[in-house]
């Protein structure tokens, strides 16, 4: 017969939780940090929005004839924004899920 163990028995006991390794001056940083990556992504989304705005202004005032250029830029910006927004929502949900977890 199979024995059912509570989840709190071994692996989730607070004593065995591994502490994150403190960053020391000796350990070389490998690539940009998570925070920096998030910031880069947000800046990229912002740039796309600005590019789309600029194209929309030019098409609306007749400086550029091609409507499709502004359309594509707008959809590109909108898609990137929504993707970023959903990643943010998921991250926030994950954080809240962890906060609700009973230890």
């Amino acid at each position, binding site marked *: 017969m199979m024995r059912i163990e509570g989840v709190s028995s071994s692996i989730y006991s607070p004593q065995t939780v591994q502490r994150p390794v403190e960053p020391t001056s000796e350990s070389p940083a490998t690539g940009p940090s998570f925070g920096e990556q998030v910031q880069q992504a947000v800046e990229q989304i912002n740039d796309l929005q600005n590019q789309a*705005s600029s194209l*929309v202004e030019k098409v*609306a005032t007749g400086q550029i004839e091609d*409507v499709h250029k502004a359309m594509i830029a707008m959809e590109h910006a909108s898609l990137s*924004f*929504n993707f970023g927004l959903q990643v943010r*929502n998921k991250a926030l949900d994950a954080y809240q899920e962890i906060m609700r977890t009973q230890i």
Partner: protein
Amino acid sequence: MTDIFLNRTNAILVKVLDGAAERQQAIANNIANAETPGYTRKDVAFEGTLIDIMQRDGLQPPAEIAAIRDVVTEIQDDFASPRRADGNNVQIEREMVSLAKNTLQYEATAQFLAERIQGLRNAIKEGRG
């Protein structure tokens, strides 16, 4: 105080819609009066002023938006076009081309504005709306 709706781009789009709507009237007048002796054709020219403001250096957003909102989109008489013997200066072909161009501009601009508003609404609802 920053207006969530009336940013630079939206102010321009609103002004272009005003101007294009006005121009639609002018073109309709011209087509209706294509055979009226002595009629002077009407036109609306606002893009030049708008582009000047957009390209002016060192104009900060609040002042820039105010300047964009102050651009006049009025129907004006066109005295420059050559007149026929009956004193009318409407060329019907030219009006038809203007009409097609103006309709496209209005529709495209309206769609841009609608999409930007949708984007704002989406951001306010955090994509869950």
